[in-house]
């Protein structure tokens, strides 16, 4: 049995920041199924929000209001307040770590505009902000390598819970296939989002819901699972992201007729309205037959920005266009479509990063979560761009601090090693022995397609029922799948199969929670209930496992400063 004070699962911004918070005092392990610097945080392009006021006066109060309005008033405002207040110091600290930021002429951190933010608030490093922050944190991790043990290319399978206390995780070494129990006084999940359940997505192959489903299987509910953000500018058919920074820098969205159609949907903010609104506008244009060449294509037009500005501010986006579709955005518009991008929902936590299980805020002792896998909820029904890198760093730090305080009060609890290990070994064995005839690849493809088509930008009761029904059948077929590779060394096939199992579970939870929410709010839009319904649905959903079925409960939203108002842009 491996033993540490704290085990962190996930090494994106949230996980690494948590590790740095504790490494001076504790023996910390950080575990990731990809090498830490390959985590998906690195893909974030546009920026990280903080009211620094480096290019225009700004305040945390405005950041708070923008965030709450952007989230369609489903955010817990007490948590948002702490989060936006913490933002500036968090950015300065990243800068002190050595993070490479673009600069203003007078040497300060440069800031630019982003959708839904009323001020230029996005601190950035050209168009690779996530990458530079991830690497700056990784550098700090290497600096403290004596007190942080990195388990790179290790996979977390399950959470060890004993009553209301968390005592570790069961993991395996991808390189050798060896299953191990990791005993810990506290566990932090920072496992990221789960966009991979959709066909068109901006997420990495690693975004497969492992963390949230491990929590769910241990009996912990998932909060606001129905809220998935679709980003307006995914590369046509691939979903790879062209950052909103492209619009922040002044890019236009054009339909097949060459019109800047945002004029019809958000005349005041145009292309810089929040993502849910822009994504719906784009989808509506395509659904009405006004896509480019009659296809599901919208044009992102940057030509008027000129080569110099594109090269200075958006070089990577230009390169992506050239490499992936042979379009140079200096000369031609980029073909885009909405892409599943961000999971607002996740493991419920309080504002200190403790995982909670109900309306009363009952804690699971020793279990913390931060970043995209968690739901605090600071983003409500729709996250504003640049707010999630901030979320990962702020709550990574807070979860680390809370875990540190908690660990100082408890010892290691007893863990039944062989019992915990056997459960995971059996899972491996079952897949190896199954000998079925179903192709896991087909199952995965069908899940993704049904999710994008029926649980995407626009939803309704019929489509969601089709979706749930299809997923349930796919789950049955999953039990009869056929595996080729039965080896132990770096068996990536078996891990993909386990991940598919997690995604099927998550897909069903998303669709079920979406069916229950009979209103439209933020990222969740029901064509059969097109209005927001504060009377009945100004509340967070909590989806629980119950005897193999799903049970949905709700908890109230924390409203402090801003009463829900109509959302216009």
């Amino acid at each position, binding site marked *: 049995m491996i033993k540490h004070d704290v085990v962190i699962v996930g090494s994106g911004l949230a996980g690494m920041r948590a590790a740095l918070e504790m490494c001076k005092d504790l023996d910390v392990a950080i575990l990731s199924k990809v090498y830490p610097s390959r985590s*998906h945080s*690195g*893909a974030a392009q546009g920026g990280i929000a903080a009211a620094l006021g480096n290019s225009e006066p700004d305040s945390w109060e405005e950041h708070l209001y923008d965030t709450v309005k952007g989230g369609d008033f489903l955010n817990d405002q007490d948590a948002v307040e702490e989060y936006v207040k913490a933002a500036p110091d968090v950015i300065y600290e990243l800068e002190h770590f050595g993070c*490479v930021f673009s600069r203003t*002429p007078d040497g300060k951190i440069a800031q630019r505009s982003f959708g839904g933010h009323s001020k230029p608030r996005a601190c950035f490093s050209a168009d690779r902000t996530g990458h530079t922050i991830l690497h700056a944190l990784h550098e700090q991790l290497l600096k403290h390598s004596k007190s942080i043990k990195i388990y790179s290319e290790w996979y977390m399978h399950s959470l060890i819970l004993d009553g209301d206390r968390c005592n570790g995780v069961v993991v395996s070494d991808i390189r050798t296939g060896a299953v191990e129990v990791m005993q810990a006084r506290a566990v932090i999940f920072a496992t990221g989002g789960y966009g991979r359940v959709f066909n068109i997505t901006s997420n*990495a192959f690693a975004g497969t819901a492992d963390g949230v489903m491990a929590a769910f299987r241990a009996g912990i509910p998932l909060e606001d699972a129905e809220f998935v953000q679709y980003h307006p500018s995914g590369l046509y058919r691939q979903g790879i992201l062209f950052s909103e920074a492209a619009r922040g820098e002044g890019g236009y969205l054009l339909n097949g007729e060459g019109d800047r159609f945002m004029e019809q949907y958000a005349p005041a903010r145009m292309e810089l309205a929040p993502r849910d609104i822009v994504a719906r506008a784009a989808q509506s244009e395509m659904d009405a037959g006004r896509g480019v060449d009659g296809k599901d294509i919208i044009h992102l037009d940057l030509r008027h920005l000129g080569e110099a500005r594109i090269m200075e501010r958006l070089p990577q986006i230009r390169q992506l266009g050239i490499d*992936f579709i042979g379009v140079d955005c200096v000369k031609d518009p980029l073909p885009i479509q909405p892409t599943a991008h961000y999971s607002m929902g996740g493991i419920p936590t309080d504002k200190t990063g403790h995982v909670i299980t109900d309306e009363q805020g009952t804690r699971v002792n020793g279990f913390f979560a931060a970043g995209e896998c968690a739901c605090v909820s600071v983003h409500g029904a729709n996250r504003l761009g640049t707010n999630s890198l901030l979320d990962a760093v702020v709550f990574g730090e807070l979860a680390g601090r809370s875990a540190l305080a908690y660990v100082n009060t408890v010892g290691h609890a007893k863990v039944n090693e062989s019992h915990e290990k056997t459960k995971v070994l059996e899972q491996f064995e079952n897949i190896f022995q199954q000998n079925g005839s179903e192709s896991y690849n087909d199952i995965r493809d069908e899940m993704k397609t049904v999710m994008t088509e029926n649980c995407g930008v626009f939803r309704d009761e019929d489509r969601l029922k089709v979706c749930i029904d299809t997923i349930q059948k796919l789950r049955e077929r999953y039990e009869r799948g056929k595996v080729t590779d039965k080896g132990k060394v770096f068996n990536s*096939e078996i891990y993909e199969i386990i991940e598919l199992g997690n995604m099927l579970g998550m897909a069903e939870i998303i669709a079920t929670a979406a069916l229950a929410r009979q209103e439209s709010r933020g990222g969740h839009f029901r064509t059969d209930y097109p209005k927001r319904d504060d009377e009945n649905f100004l509340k967070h959903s909590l989806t629980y496992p119950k005897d193999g079925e799903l049970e949905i409960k709700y908890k109230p939203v924390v409203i402090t400063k801003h009463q829900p108002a109509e959302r216009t842009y």
Partner: protein
Amino acid sequence: MATFRIKRYNPEKQPEPYYEEFQLDIPQGATLLDCMNQIKWTLDGSFTYRMSCRSAICGSCAVKANGHALLACQRQASHLVKNGDTIVLEPLGNMKPIKDLVVDFKPFWDKIDKIKPYLQPKTRAPEKERLQSPEQFKRIDDSSTCIMCGSCYSDCNVLEVNDKFLGPAALAKAQRFVEDSRDGKTHERVKELSKPGGIWDCTHCAECVERCPKPARPFDRIKEVMTVALEERVTNNTGARHAISFTKSIKSSGRLNENTLPVESVGYFNVKGLFDLLPVGLRMLFKGKIPPILHKSIDDVDDVKRIFMEADKE
């Protein structure tokens, strides 16, 4: 129909690697990674490689295609088809294969570790951000784009014969700190980097620049570190001495005079590469701005002399 000729290796099954061929219709617009996934998901589930972001930013998917390292997710497969119909896929070089196209990155990371890859600030942290001008940012902009994919490391010739060489990625990462206006250890860093295994072991072949999928372009960064090393007068080593006598030799004759170069100097067999270094030596000798004409080719002694006179004036 294209043929993917893939180097397979599975130590659990047989100790030696072998090649296996798969036939696949390359879908329109498919990247090499799309095709590899197609092979894995429909033809042979045991085919093994790394991948994650599929947008050229995580650095997982570097492999050798037709003998050269590249990011599988960044290349259109159809552009790689050679000899009518074949793409040859092999694991990255200079690292041990674990299974199929997955190699052991340990030596790569160990070398990154060696260059102290973190800011060692000059000053105590101020209340807000440390100031850094856009020009100072520009000096570390390119090196900070490195995604640690290992493509350069795979194809670096020196590493094939000298596994002590820190290699292009680690040296590019070093430039990121050497030239960071906020870092206080410039001198210590270039001193360390001038030791055997460091910057002067590079043979200037520029292969790493060809292979780098990002603007990091290691050899360009190595030249910058060399410049700083000479400016910091860290010259008590073979490589630096070599660069200096090379410059002197060119200055007097307009030609490379092999006799005046220290014979024991290691690694220099690439004259074109040495010409690249001219400005570095010059900067050291004259500590001034380099006339742009130096980047052009030098055919005439008088030209060279003129350049040096101009440099002298500055």
